């Protein structure tokens, strides 16, 4: 993974000093709350329900063992010994003290980490596929370009105070796993007819209050121009994006208001001036960064491993886990392994310091000392030998990191919601936990098969509920907590926004509602059909009918 040189290190060190001074001035009353706000936000510090929340950047989801050990130590020393991995591949601490943040940043800088631009109205952490570099369907490893873009966006002077946050995702696979269509800018890398690295550029996607999938603004962009083209897009947005209304301030609203053609015309006009400017990426720079993402020193292994096959045959619990948690790898005899942060009954995406230390050790022992955070809020060891899988499983299981539920209904994506977040309409974690307990029977869970369930505690959609096969959104009705359900959302190449099935439910009803949706699917599915495909084939009507049947019956009785 990328290693800092002196330039990178100086920058994060200077950031620590700058932020220490800003905090000092704030505490001394020399900065007002309003003035300090964007400064702390651009350093990932929110003021939340109980305490500030600090979001630490994990660029494109990559972590080293050393870094994860450090995160675990920081969580122990400055927080309640746990952290939350987010859908944007970052890590959040829920209880740090504002006064301690400069020291936390200094600790992070020691392991080449920071919290720069993890919040606020600026270009945020760039996200990508958690299987980057090892996925068999990968055409281009997107990480070198992601790192080049990370550096470009870090303290970009022109884009320091945008109308609203700005999120970029990059992807280099046939099957998109980075949700490029749900980002302000999505960059899809591919090899063009000349076998040159090229980019398909998406713009104007975003969830939140007004969920919109992005559109393609340019089918073919030579990689050298990635930065200047982004500059043209962000400049048009910076100048013309709405600042008078925070809910209309994302780039998606500007693109809709102008229409893609006019927006594109303005961008291309800007770009005509910016093209070939010094920010044009050089071969040499891409090569310099790419050498940090060279393939690992893999051993030459056979496709199969006898000890692994034997363990699968003799140990059903291991086999169930392996079925869900092992993912195909470019190299024979290797697998990417997902460690589940979705143990039933635990807050999705949370990991204790002890668990973090364990994962860091496992990564060191079995996966070249590196790991990734997925936007599904799990941790991935990308390069595990089949022959090590069993030992890894035993150790992970002892720490509650081996729930065999990856990609299944209980692998819930969930925002912190009302337990932590001051913007929440409703709690989300207890809903996730109740659903997990409802579907605690493993055979049943595996029978239901692949399913994505996403929960957000409010319209801001931090839990990506719009693109969940089943999406749950917390809403506020007369001061009490209710939940609206959507069906048919999806990430990936066929990304889609879910449809609301009808009136909302109370928290107590939610596990049963999900149970009913599942029962319709189980009766209606054709063979191996996945939940989402059944929803697409049948539409929401039969689901809706079943879920509201009792309610309607009750109503009818009431009238009679």
């Amino acid at each position, binding site marked *: 993974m990328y290693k800092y*040189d002196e*330039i990178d290190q*100086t*920058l994060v060190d*200077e*950031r620590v000093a*700058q932020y220490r001074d*800003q905090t000092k001035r704030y505490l001394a009353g*020399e*900065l007002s709350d309003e*003035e300090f706000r*964007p*400064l702390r936000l651009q350093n990932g510090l929110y003021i939340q329900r109980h305490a500030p929340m600090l979001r630490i950047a994990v660029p494109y989801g990559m972590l080293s063992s050393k870094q994860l050990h450090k995160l675990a130590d920081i969580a122990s020393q400055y927080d309640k010994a746990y952290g939350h991995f987010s859908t944007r591949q970052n890590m959040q601490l829920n209880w740090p003290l504002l006064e301690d943040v400069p020291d936390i940043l200094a600790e992070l800088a020691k392991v080449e980490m920071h919290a720069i631009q993890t919040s606020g*109205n600026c270009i945020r952490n760039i996200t990508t596929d958690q299987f980057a570099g090892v996925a068999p369907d990968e055409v281009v490893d997107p990480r070198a370009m992601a790192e080049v873009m990370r*550096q*470009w*966006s*870090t*303290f*970009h*002077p*022109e*884009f*320091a*105070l*945008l*109308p609203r946050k700005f999120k970029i995702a990059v992807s280099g696979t046939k099957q998109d796993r980075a949700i490029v269509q749900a980002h302000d800018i999505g960059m899809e890398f591919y090899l063009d007819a000349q076998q040159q690295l090229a980019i398909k550029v998406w713009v104007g996607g975003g969830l939140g209050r007004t969920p919109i999938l992005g559109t393609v603004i340019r089918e073919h962009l030579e990689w050298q121009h990635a*930065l200047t083209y982004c500059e043209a897009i962000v*400049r048009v947005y*910076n*100048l*013309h994006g*709405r*600042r*008078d*209304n925070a809910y209309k301030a994302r780039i998606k609203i500007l693109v809709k208001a102008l229409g893609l053609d006019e927006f594109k015309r303005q961008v291309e006009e800007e770009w005509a*001036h910016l093209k070939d*400017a*010094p*920010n044009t*990426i*050089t071969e*040499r*720079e891409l090569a*310099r960064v790419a050498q940090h993402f060279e393939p690992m020193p893999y051993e030459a292994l056979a496709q199969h491993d006898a000890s692994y096959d034997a363990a699968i045959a003799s140990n059903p619990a291991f086999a169930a886990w392996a079925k869900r948690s092992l993912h195909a790898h470019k190299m024979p005899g290797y697998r990417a392994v997902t460690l589940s942060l979705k143990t039933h009954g635990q807050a999705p995406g949370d990991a204790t310091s002890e668990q973090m230390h364990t994962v860091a050790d496992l990564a060191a022992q079995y996966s070249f000392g590196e790991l990734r955070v997925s936007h599904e809020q799990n941790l991935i060891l990308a390069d595990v030998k089949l022959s090590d899988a069993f030992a890894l499983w035993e150790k992970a299981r002892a720490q509650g990191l081996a729930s065999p539920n990856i990609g299944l209904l209980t692998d819930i994506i969930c925002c912190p919601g009302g337990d932590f977040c001051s913007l929440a309409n409703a709690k989300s974690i207890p809903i996730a936990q109740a659903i997990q307990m409802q579907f605690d029977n493993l055979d049943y869970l595996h029978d239901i098969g692949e399913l994505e369930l996403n929960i957000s505690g409010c319209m801001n959609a931090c839990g990506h509920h719009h693109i969940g096969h089943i999406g749950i959104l917390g809403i506020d009705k007369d001061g009490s907590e209710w939940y609206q359900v959507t069906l048919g959302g999806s990430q990936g190449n066929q990304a889609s926004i879910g449809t609301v099935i009808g009136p909302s439910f109370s928290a107590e009803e939610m596990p049963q509602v999900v149970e009913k949706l599942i029962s319709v699917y189980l009766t209606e599915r054709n063979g191996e059909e996945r939940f989402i495909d059944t929803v697409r084939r049948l539409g929401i009507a039969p689901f809706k009918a079943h879920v509201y049947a009792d309610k309607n019956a009750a109503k009818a009785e009431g009238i009679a």
Partner: protein
Amino acid sequence: MSHLITLQADVAKITEDAWQFVALPPSQQEVRKQAGKVVLFKLTGEQTVTPEQIAGTLIPANGKVLVPLTVFIARKTQLQARLDQKEVGVWLDTHESLTDLNQAQADLNALPIIAVHVERFADGRIFSLGSLLRSRYGFKNELRAVGDVLRDQLFFLKRSGFNSFAMRTDRSAAEAIASLNDFSRPYQGAVDEARPAFRRYNR
């Protein structure tokens, strides 16, 4: 004491202000509200200055004057002689357009100073306006940030081409100078240094 920081050959100093800032008279228009809240930021291209305000703007008879863009456009003939003496500069708001400025004044370098007024520090349009003035319009003279100009934006303003900063007067300008150099080796090319780190250094 002056609150003006100027950069000359990369050295920052507190200097006396030679320019008289000409403000528009208050408008009679009502404050625009949305959901009960005052609208904080005006939209780019929005017409916010009335003909009465333009006509009613008092321009001091002598000395160097920094006049609002709308006044400059409407009353340019009146100002022409002083413009030729290099005694007229123009300031614009972040929602005003550089095209309008350029149409009124084809050779921007005839202006000894252009200022961008930022009503609220969080309005990042000022950075794009500075960048465009320098890189697109080739403006070479003094480029000043005025209004809600605070220390923590100085580094970005400098990198966006500003070389003079009228700091908010309730804060120390002398202390703010330090923030012009918050970062010594920025990554990306910008106005002050066009080459990104990967072209400047042998990384």
